[in-house]
């Protein structure tokens, strides 16, 4: 079985290639596999009908209950015949019908045949679902075709969505069902059906899925719409095979679940209502396919009801009816297809007199129609008899047998009526008015119709064979109280026979009454417009989507942030407030310097809010930074303070330089007072929250900090400065991450500032700095060269004082930076502060001497310096494991040199050197970006430019 299924898919995948070479022959190739399936099924039939079963299984995900388990039993056999048999015929038929996209269609149809076979063979609920959804997808693709018209697209989508929705509901049902049953294996569930618990829920869910697939009211709308698909597709998917999936599921589960409460009411109610209403609707149709489609819906309703009734007779009747329906409905669709293919229309108002022109087709079609109407000795009759029997003597709890039977008869009568209408509409009428001279179809074209119609006759007349199969399925039920019913064409004069006759007569009458008003089909009362319902639902979802999205996704960053912070306040904030934890009894301050610095910090911060100028804001923020650094000093963190001071200065420089060209003032926000109030409230609340949080957590400290370990073991790192030991040794990985951030940020700055220069070069800023130079500006120019590149700067920007001072200070600053680097292990400092100090030295060179001078000072590309730093730091980290140690491991090395004595240093120094280099490189990179933003020197002066050129 697995091989067969795989072969279907494999061949289907290959067909588009073959189609180009083989032309129409490809359909023959495609039909081989379904035929093989039929053959295999027939060979296996003997064992299956004796009550045995073929099983195969492939493990997939057992923990999830997923196993590709296949099982061939009587019901599967029946379905397999239908699926593969009709499939083969349809494929052969396509050879004559399909004009374009043959490869695609053949592949899809074959794939569909494969998945449908899989569906009926599946012995695992989830695998069944897998195939179920795959058929849905195939149906979507087949209906949509190339999707050139809106009609096709929407029909395809409707089919997809409705059946998939049903499928999802069903999936949930399966999950629940399996949960209750403790297994997802169908055969096991059938043997030992679960009861109680959530099983009723599962039943409802599963049935909803089945109804959707089988186009039961009120979910049937997709099936008539799907008639835009090519006729063979309609015949196969939407009459014979796919829509049967729901029915199959009902038939499959009925033996196990029919006794569960909601099962019978649902199945009977929905099934019978569908049968009657859809048949009624069919009488209104003027399109042959549409007529057949509603007929299909109606028949499916019948099948659902009868297979779901859960009695032995019902099962027999259902099996027979299933076969009958597959045969005649496929035949009728194919016939309608031929009519359309040959005449170019399928509107019964335009078709007339075809019966005489195409007698063979007419004959075959008439036979199939008769089966549909339930005339003896055809299979349809066999089924109809059994159905009536099943209901008449039904075991439905509550005495509604007669009511249901009456409905059933009405349904059959309507069926007869629309069957007559179809035959009459398509083939009847005087031959006089040819609608575009129909060509006589080829033999091969009609043959499938004939075979299918003939099958109805053969299986009906040779009812014994049919009965064998049906009995094999019905084995699952106990014999009814009236003894076991047997399928037969003649049971004697029973009430059922009378009912059957009654339906025929009623139907005939109905047709006779209505035949004069065929053209005015609209006189038949309309049914509730489910199609409109679907459309409204979809439009509703769309509107809802737009409405929700419009109100959430407003596109405004301030709003987003407000929402975010409001969440912070509302969720953890509320939790904290609710918990009302102890805030402890914190001191007012640890050192009197703290309130002082706090005043500085808070005042300056508040002033930032009021600032209207960029520079003011930056300066005030700088003051906040210095204040914070002061706190660091007071709290015993000199290294931190050092870094903070340096970073603050660097931030000031970078921000000021980058923003040099932007206008001095902020744009005044046009915020609504309400919004501003909200922001103030939210921001204030966050502030209060953080304060309380901090007090609460710090009061709640339960265990001593782990840090005492650092102090205890710092000697092992060879360092005195614990913080530095943490940074370069204990937690060097943090530092590695941190410098990575720094590096990538610098890379980003360069990328942001420079890449657009070709676009925005002409705008030259809004005039800042170009308004003119103060007359004294160039007076300051030095006469000698103090900084090698400074000559290239415009005179107006130079200052003799600064240049000389820079010349004098530059080496000293570098020495200081190296001191910080090397002394980091003992004093506050380290690679980072050292690098920043060196960076400041270069900032100074840049400020005073310009880009050219910086270029002279550092002839290397900035990126290479920074990259080399990262390379060194990460490489130092990766070196030890190569030597068999642990990454980022450090050792204290002692050298004994002559004269000097013992020199002790930790290898983590190299890591620090990497950090140092990186920071210097990053500074240079930032400066190069700033330089670009200013455009104050010809390109090529700074490393970054050369770097860029070198890469081309």
């Amino acid at each position: 079985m697995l091989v067969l299924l795989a072969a279907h898919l494999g061949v289907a995948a290959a067909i588009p290639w073959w189609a180009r070479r083989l032309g129409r022959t490809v359909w023959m190739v495609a039909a081989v596999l379904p035929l093989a399936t039929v053959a295999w099924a027939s060979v296996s039939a003997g064992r299956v009908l004796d009550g045995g079963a073929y099983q195969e299984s492939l493990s997939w995900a057992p923990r999830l209950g997923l196993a590709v388990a296949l099982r061939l039993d009587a019901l599967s056999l029946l379905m397999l015949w239908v699926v593969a048999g009709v499939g083969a015929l349809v494929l052969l038929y396509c050879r004559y019908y399909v004009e374009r996209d043959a490869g695609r269609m053949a592949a899809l149809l074959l794939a569909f045949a494969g998945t449908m076979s899989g569906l009926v063979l599946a012995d695992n609920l989830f695998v069944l679902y897998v195939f179920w959804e795959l058929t849905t997808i195939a149906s979507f693709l087949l209906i949509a075709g190339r999707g050139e018209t809106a009609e096709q697209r929407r029909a395809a989508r409707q089919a997809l969505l409705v059946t998939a929705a049903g499928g999802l509901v069903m999936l949930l049902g399966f999950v629940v069902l399996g949960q209750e049953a403790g297994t997802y294996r169908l055969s096991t569930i059938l043997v030992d059906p679960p009861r109680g618990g959530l099983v009723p829920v599962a039943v409802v869910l599963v049935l909803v899925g089945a109804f959707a697939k089988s186009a039961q009211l009120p979910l049937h709308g997709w099936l008539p719409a799907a008639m835009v698909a090519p006729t063979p597709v309609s015949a196969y998917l939407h009459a014979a095979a796919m829509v049967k999936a729901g029915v199959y599921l009902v038939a499959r589960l009925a033996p196990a679940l029919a006794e569960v409460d909601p099962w019978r009411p649902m199945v009977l109610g929905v099934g019978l209502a569908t049968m009657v209403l859809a048949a009624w609707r069919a009488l209104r149709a003027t399109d042959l396919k549409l007529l057949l489609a509603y007929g299909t819906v109606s028949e499916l309703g019948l099948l659902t009801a009868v297979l779901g009734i859960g009695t032995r007779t019902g099962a027999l009747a259902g099996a027979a009816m299933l076969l009958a329906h597959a045969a005649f409905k496929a035949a009728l669709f194919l016939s309608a297809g031929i009519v359309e293919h040959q005449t170019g229309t399928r509107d019964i108002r335009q078709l007339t007199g075809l019966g005489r022109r195409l007698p063979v087709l007419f004959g075959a079609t008439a036979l199939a129609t008769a089966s549909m109407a339930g005339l003896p000795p055809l299979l349809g009759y066999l089924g109809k008899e059994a159905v009536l029997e099943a209901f008449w003597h039904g075991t439905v709890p509550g005495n509604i047998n007669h009511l249901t039977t009456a409905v059933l008869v009405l349904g059959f009568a309507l069926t007869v009526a629309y069957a007559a209408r179809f035959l009459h509409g398509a083939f009847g009428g005087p031959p006089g008015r040819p609608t575009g001279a129909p060509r006589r179809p080829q033999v091969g074209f009609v043959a499938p119709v004939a075979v299918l119609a003939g099958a109805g006759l053969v299986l009906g007349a040779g009812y014994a064979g049919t009965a064998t199969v049906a009995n094999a399925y019905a084995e699952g039920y106990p014999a009814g109280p009236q003894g076991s019913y047997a399928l037969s064409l003649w049971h004697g004069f029973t009430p059922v026979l009378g009912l059957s006759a009654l339906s025929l007569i009623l139907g005939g009458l109905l047709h006779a009454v209505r035949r004069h008003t065929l053209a005015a089909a609209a006189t038949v009362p309309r049914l509730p417009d489910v199609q409109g319902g679907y459309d409204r639902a979809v439009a509703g979802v769309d509107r809802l989507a737009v409405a929700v999205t419009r109100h959430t996704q407003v596109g405004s960053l301030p709003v987003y942030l407000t929402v975010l912070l409001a969440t912070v306040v509302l969720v953890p904030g509320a939790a904290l407030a609710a918990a009302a934890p102890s805030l402890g009894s914190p001191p007012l301050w640890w050192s009197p310097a703290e309130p002082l610095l706090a005043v500085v910090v808070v005042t300056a911060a508040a002033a930032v809010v009021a600032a209207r100028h960029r520079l003011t804001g930056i300066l005030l923020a700088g003051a906040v930074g210095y204040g914070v650094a002061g706190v660091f000093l007071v709290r015993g963190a000199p290294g931190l303070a050092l870094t903070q001071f340096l970073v603050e200065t660097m931030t000031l420089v970078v921000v000021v330089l980058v923003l040099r060209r932007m206008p001095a003032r902020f744009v005044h926000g046009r915020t609504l007072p309400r919004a501003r109030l909200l922001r103030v409230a939210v921001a204030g609340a966050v502030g209060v929250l953080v304060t309380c949080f901090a007090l609460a957590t710090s009061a709640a400290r339960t265990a001593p900090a782990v840090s005492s370990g650092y102090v205890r073991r710092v000697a092992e790192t060879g360092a005195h400065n614990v913080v530095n030991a943490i940074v370069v040794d204990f937690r060097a990985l943090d530092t590695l991450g941190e410098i990575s951030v720094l590096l990538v940020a610098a890379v980003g700055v360069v990328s942001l500032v420079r890449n657009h220069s070709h676009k925005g070069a002409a705008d030259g800023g809004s005039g800042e700095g170009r308004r003119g130079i103060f007359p004294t500006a160039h007076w300051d120019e030095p006469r000698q060269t103090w900084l090698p590149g400074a000559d290239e700067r415009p005179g107006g920007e130079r200052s003799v004082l600064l240049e000389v001072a820079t010349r004098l200070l530059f080496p000293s600053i570098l020495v200081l930076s190296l001191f910080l680097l090397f002394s980091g292990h003992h004093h506050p400092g380290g690679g980072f502060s050292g690098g920043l100090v060196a960076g400041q030295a270069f900032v100074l060179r840049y400020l005073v001497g310009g880009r050219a001078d910086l270029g002279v000072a550092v002839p290397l590309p900035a990126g290479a310096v920074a990259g080399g730093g990262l390379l060194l730091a990460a490489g130092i980290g990766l070196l030890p494991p190569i030597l068999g140690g642990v990454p980022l491991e450090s050792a204290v090395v002692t050298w004994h040199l002559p004269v000097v004595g013992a020199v002790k240093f930790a290898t983590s120094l190299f890591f620090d050197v990497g950090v140092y280099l990186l920071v210097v490189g990053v500074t240079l990179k930032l400066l190069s970006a700033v330089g670009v933003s200013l455009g104050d020197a010809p390109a090529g002066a700074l490393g970054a430019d050369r770097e860029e050129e070198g890469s081309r």
Partner: protein
Amino acid sequence: MTALYLVTLAGVAAAGLLTLLRLVRGPRALDRVIALDVLVTMVIAGTAVRTAMDKDTTALPVLLVLALLAFTGSVTAAHLIEKREGMR
């Protein structure tokens, strides 16, 4: 002796607060630049006193760096101001 240090610190602190006032009040950016510069000076002074008071030398690198490099920020800001308002 400690009282002496505290008096000194108080003086420096008061000076710092006054400077802060100037920083906040402006009115011009240059005023703020000056004020920020002075604020740094106050930090140096205060830290130096603390260093002497606690005999704690760890803050010395901070002082060095501040003394040597705080002026780059001021110079940058001044540059910006001159460029922007040079010939209004």
